């Protein structure tokens, strides 16, 4: 983990920068801390939002972040990654999201909806998708889990472009503050953007301009629906690192490819207002969320995915094997590298430097393990980004913004360990921090009891009391 050792700046300087407002073209956020898109299987099976989701989002607004980016929000049921995620596929979902906005806004916190489509990265498609292949840019299956895919026809592409546009319209009608296109981490938009995945030979494949056509059509369709003054940002991989698991796979997009895509998405000032920089052409990926891969929880909870792909059983056998599991964990750490906190900062800086030369009004967010004021302020100060998005450290400490006001970060015991147990438990259990060592108590049982209390707190208050 990289820790800032730059003592040139006092904590007050760092906090001052972090808690200064961030002004986008059409949106102002009270500080530079964004709750990154972070989900849990909290909603109704059919995509209606649930009461628990309201509690979940409210936790972070109350904790002091300036803006929340919603959980992964499918624009269509075929674009779902996991069941029990609230969707934005129909106008009947607008009332729920309006309530979410209302709750969050009451804490002077902004809320952006992340419009998403899984494409072939459909970990648990649910019964609605049981007999369908996932839609994608390609017929090639997802190389990690072996989820089968079917290359979309131009007509199907246009249908999905429209689904994104309608999703944005619904978000605006729900009173939300903007939308983010999930163009990173291997989901459908990445499947078009990435040279490592997109193998089309039509207008949507080949050169980077063609690969970006799908995303640009979505941006233009959204602008058509929501107008020029509704905040629209794009989450994008700095670099794909598509060969993390199988070295013989293509590497995917380089930083230069990404810069070309970003330039296109500006669309002469009519396109996106901001970029949110991540990396990794799959989810999960050793670089996203950056950290460890916990083998024991993986063996316990990966079973729910066995029916989803044609390589899941193979993966499970690897995870479940004493040698295979350790080798996978070693590969994971090796492919991630040594830096965790600020892992994408260099990519963001390169892109921000180049893009702001063209349009200084464009802002950049950077994600990747941030939980220390010095690192956050350092990234903003050196021009890597204008704000940071945080996920797991906020699960570990919902009140992290308040901590950062007075300290560089949480106390050692309370820090997020980047163990990624939250990630793996999400396949079966309520999303929360599952790192026992972080909890108070003298015995394991005491700590575990406190862990359960913390995880279950999302259900409180209950809907009926």
């Amino acid at each position, binding site marked *: 983990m990289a820790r800032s050792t730059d003592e040139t700046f006092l904590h007050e300087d760092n906090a001052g920068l972090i808690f200064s407002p961030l002004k986008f073209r059409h949106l102002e956020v009270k500080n530079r801390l964004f709750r990154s898109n972070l989900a849990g299987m909290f909603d109704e099976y059919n995509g209606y939002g649930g009461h628990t989701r309201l509690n979940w989002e409210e936790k972070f607004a109350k904790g002091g972040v300036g803006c929340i980016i919603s959980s992964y929000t499918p624009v269509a049921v075929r674009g779902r990654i996991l069941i029990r995620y609230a969707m934005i596929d129909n106008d009947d979902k607008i009332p729920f999201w309006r309530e979410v906005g209302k709750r969050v806004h009451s804490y002077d916190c902004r809320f952006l909806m992340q419009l998403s489509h899984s494409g072939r990265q459909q970990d648990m498609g649910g019964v609605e998708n*049981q*007999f*369908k*292949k996932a839609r994608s840019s390609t017929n090639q299956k997802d190389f990690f889990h*072996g*989820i*089968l895919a079917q290359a979309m026809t131009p007509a199907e592409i246009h249908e999905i472009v429209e689904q994104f546009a309608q999703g944005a319209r619904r978000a605006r009608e729900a009173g939300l503050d903007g939308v983010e296109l999930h163009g990173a981490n291997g989901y459908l938009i990445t499947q078009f953007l990435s040279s490592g995945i997109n193998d089309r030979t039509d207008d949507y494949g080949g050169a980077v301009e063609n690969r970006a056509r799908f995303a640009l059509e979505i941006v233009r369709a959204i602008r058509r629906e929501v107008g020029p003054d509704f905040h629209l940002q794009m989450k994008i991989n700095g670099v794909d690192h598509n060969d993390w698991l199988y070295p013989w796979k293509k590497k995917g997009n380089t930083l230069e490819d990404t810069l070309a895509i970003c330039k296109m998405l500006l669309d002469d000032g009519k396109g996106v207002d901001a970029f949110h920089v991540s990396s990794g052409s799959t989810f999960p990926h050793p670089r996203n969320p950056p950290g460890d891969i916990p083998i024991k929880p993986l063996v316990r909870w990966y079973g729910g995915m066995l*029916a*989803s*792909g*044609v390589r899941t*059983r193979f993966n499970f056998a690897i995870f479940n094997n004493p040698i295979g599991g350790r080798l996978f964990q070693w590969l994971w750490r090796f492919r991630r590298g040594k830096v965790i906190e600020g892992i994408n900062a260099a990519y963001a800086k390169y892109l921000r430097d180049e893009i702001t030369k063209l349009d200084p009004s464009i802002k950049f967010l950077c994600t990747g393990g941030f939980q220390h004021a010095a690192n956050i302020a350092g990234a903003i100060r050196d021009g890597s980004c204008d704000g940071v998005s945080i996920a797991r450290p906020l699960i570990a400490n919902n009140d992290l913004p308040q901590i950062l006001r007075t300290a560089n970060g949480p106390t050692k015991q309370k820090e997020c360990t980047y163990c990624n147990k939250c990630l793996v438990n999400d396949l079966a259990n309520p999303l929360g921090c599952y790192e026992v060592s972080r909890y108070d108590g003298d015995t394991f049982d005491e700590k575990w009891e406190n862990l359960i209390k913390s995880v279950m707190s999302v259900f409180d208050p209950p809907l009926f009391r």
Partner: protein
Amino acid sequence: MNYDPPTPAERVLARHRWIRCFVVLVVLALAIYYLFFVNQYVIAYRNDVDHFKYGSIGSEPNLGLPILVFKALPVLYQDRLGPTGYRRFGMLYDNDKSDLPIGMSRRYVGGVERVWFNCAICHVGTYRLALTDKPTFIYGAPANNLRLYELLKFFLTISADPKFNADNLVAAIDSPTVGGDLNFVQRFIYRRFVFPAVQQGLLELSRQFSFMAKADTPGYGPYFDWGPGRVDTFNPYKAIQFNFPMDARHIGETALNGSSDFPSIWEQHPRDGMHLHWDGNNTSVDERNLSAALGAGVTPVTVDIASIKRVRAWIWDLPPPPFPAPIGTDRDTVAEINRGRALFADYCAGCHGMKDASGQYDYDTARYPHLGQVESWDRIGTDRGRLDSYTPNFAAAQNMLYAGYPWRFTHFRKTDGYASQPLDGIWARSPYLHNGSVPTLRDLLEPAGNRPAKWYRGSDILDIDKVGYRSDGYGSAPGDLFVYDTAVPGNSNRGHEGKDYGTELPAADKDAIVEYMKTL
């Protein structure tokens, strides 16, 4: 309508399942094929002597008989072999309960346990001092009992015998004596696969050995029984390994009858570099060993080098057996031995070496310049058969054997005589001369004319005075022993005679030399 169709992933997995099943089946089939039909299994013996007696050297894949067939044949042919089975051919058994004779080894080849010869078949002798004694085994000595010719003839003749059929074979295997107790599957396998394969193998062997059976056929020379303790080393070798033509136009009567005694195989270390084989055609113990293994049925492909190396290590410094009867220590006997030693030093040691003052056999070729060297036939004058059976063409062919391996033959040469050998343990190497034509050492010191012209061979009762196995038929039923006729081609007892060879010495001096030779 299918109300429970597979998901896309299940459809692919179902396809993969067939592929996986196919791959697993192929892998299993390959594993079974490898484990049962490619890989071979032998019995490993802790003890070097047991390894020598029963360890496989790799002859079974080529010539081996399934063990149940080997055991069934004496039952099936009790009329020809009698109640003692393979003992009729001089094969030795450790005891009455022994499963196989000494010199027969086992190896699982192609899923069947097969048996065939190893080194011990030709290199374990026995002796008795009295008729009623139990034979004592001498490991590394010439197999004085083994009637290899008769044994081979037995195997070769049954191949075309109507009695040798699947029904009779299976019945013999299931007999109480063999105790095969085959189930119906095994019976089916033996009827349909094992028997035809064995019959085919024996027919092929019979074809290769056909020159032996054509003694009375026009165009083929007469071919004579080797008798016990002897083998025609190179003529079968020519026929089997190289397909040499063996008819009268290509090989004369003398060369065709070149049988010779089995040699002893102890103390090989000092022999390395000497001219080995009776005619001295090779100076490498290792090549001689491998060549002898070929004679036992090994092929360059099936040879078990590690096993042969283990035998080699054991015989490298294996000591010869001491004379089994007391040697007199009275003054007269000691004086006689001393006189014999002096005479031996004068007449024999130059070619054969002798024990030094410390009692160790001295193999020093610098001290004994003719030791281990080829003595020209013009001088030695013994039977030419064995010498002529080995030809330059054959030497050239031998030097092509094991091509591509580090142990390829390179030392074989045609010589013009017979090699002088160390005489360590000479008492256990009777009869004498390369063709075993002279029954005792005392007889050998006589001119050829005084040596037995027709005598009984195959006894293991030791004549401790003349030193050699008895040749007078003592203790054996008429017909049990082999009548050795020195008039038969290849059997001549001439040579190794004259003033230089001590045959003109007074009888008392000859007795003294023999008395001394008991101590070698």
